[in-house]
């Protein structure tokens, strides 16, 4: 059991002609736990809207989204918080880091939000792999966008999850760093037997996708 989307159409996109040819909007879709799902879409077709819908940030849509048989629109704040701590992790397109904190504090905050499953040493190792260890103690606002993107990737890997939802997670990374980050994400998903949902502008081969859809 994973996500089930039944005839979901966001209100803000309802009148757009692109909805008629979408592979997701208005369709019946089921994504199982462990699936690697790629959603490709040109700008303006609602990638970020889809991510926000799946993560329970927006409720302005028709149809229904079920997670493990439960309509996510009916979850109360504590149930939603519980799912976000244990079932879903996210990398936002706009990163959403705490500007006043350092890179390490941003990651640490997520690490201790629930019972930590990653040790501080493992955190250091991930930062080392992604090449941001040296900036860990810098205020995040002084880091480049690419560095911030890697911080937000590591932050997303600090918790248990069944689905890792990503919105253009590599948009500011060079090819080599994209590869390293994707490998880290894939191995962390494998550790948890988890799936991922990634939205991007173009086709890519970062992961072995079981499902590939156009929005």
């Amino acid at each position, binding site marked *: 059991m994973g996500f089930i989307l039944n005839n979901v159409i966001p209100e803000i996109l309802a009148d757009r002609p692109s909805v008629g040819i979408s592979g997701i909007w208005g369709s019946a879709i089921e994504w199982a736990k462990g699936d690697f799902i790629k959603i490709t879409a040109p700008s303006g077709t609602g990638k970020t809207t889809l991510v926000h819908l799946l993560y329970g940030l927006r409720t302005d849509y028709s149809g229904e989204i079920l997670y493990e048989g439960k309509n996510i629109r009916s979850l109360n*704040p*504590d149930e939603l918080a519980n799912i*976000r*701590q244990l079932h879903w992790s996210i990398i936002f397109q706009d990163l959403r880091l705490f500007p006043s904190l350092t890179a390490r504090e941003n990651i640490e905050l*997520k690490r201790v939000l629930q019972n930590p499953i990653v040790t501080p040493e493992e955190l250091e190792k991930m930062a080392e792999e992604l090449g941001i260890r040296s900036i860990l103690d810098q205020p995040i606002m002084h880091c480049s966008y690419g560095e911030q993107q890697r911080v937000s990737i590591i932050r997303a890997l600090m918790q248990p999850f069944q689905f890792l939802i990503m919105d253009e997670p590599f948009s500011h990374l060079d090819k080599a760093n994209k590869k390293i980050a994707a490998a880290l994400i894939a191995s962390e998903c494998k550790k948890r037997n988890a799936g991922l949902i990634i939205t991007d502008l173009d086709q890519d081969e970062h992961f072995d996708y079981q499902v590939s859809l156009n929005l």
Partner: protein
Amino acid sequence: MVTSRIGLGIAVFLLLTAIQIQSNYHFLLNSNNNKDSIADFLVINKTLDNNSLGNTKLDQALINEIAKQPFTESVGILTPSRFKASIQSISNQFPFYTDISFESVPSSFIDVKNVSFAWDPSAEFVPVIVPNMFLDIYNFQFSLSQNLPQLTPAIVKMIVFKLTVYGKNGPISFNAKIVGLSDRISSMLVPAEFIKWGNNYAETQSDNEVSRIVLKTNDPSNASIASFLKKNNLSTNTEKLRYSKYRKVIDTVVAIAGFTGGLMLLFALIIFTLFIQLTIANCKQEIILLITLGAAPRQLAKFLLGQFYPGNLLSIASATILIVALQYGLKLFLEKQLIFIPSLISLFTLMTAVALSVLLWFVTRKSIQKHINN
């Protein structure tokens, strides 16, 4: 924030001080160490002025009302003799003669202990209790002016004198003896049985009017006694009520301290509520982001409570510790003046501090919850 916490500390200090002062005062009143046996008994009669002249009767309704007052423990009626009587010495060496009258009072109001204060017509002598003041007047004024010997209480109690009651069937004489000296009631006291017998013998047309009563109270400094007496045009030995004036001042000061403390507490609570609201409003973006990342509202509320509450608790604890220290200091200070108060603060004061902590926790928690949910 620091200023408002100091304000809270002062508010709590004032409130607890008010409560502790009251507690100490009640301890002083009820403690055996400090008990003043004179002050507990008040002899009450109508204030004698041009209006009440010849009409000093205390009616039963008024006596019942006095008995019902919260400051009253018990009321005893002073029964006056309504017969003509005289006493005279039976010794030529120490001659005296005087007309006299007596009163009787229920035995529970008599402070002369260890003597049998009863009489019947076959008794050997009539026991009499005399106010200490009379002996003082004799020893320090009369004896000096008349060139008579001074008398100790022990000697006075050995003197037997003749008591004569005059009735329709002529005078009847008895032997009489002073069995005790009292500070409590300024009247010549004989047993109630003797008054009854004498009144019968004299066949007075008495309707058993009551003009004086004795009131036993647990708190002679209670300001409401003075105001009650004034309202009903009654008077007593004002000296015995002198503490009520001090008490009034203390009560006023305590009330002002308590009121100021209460007001400051209210302000402190309002300031904290506003401060919490402001802090949460300032961190609104961060709080939204935390919730987005999966923080539960309950987790956040717990965290914020942990940020705000310990400081407030510290204010209350500091104020309480200060009160504890002051109480101990006051105990040491008053001990030197033979006034004994407890070295620890009262349980009630402590419970108030605990109650204030709970109240503050509740207000802080509610305020956080309210603003987080918004």
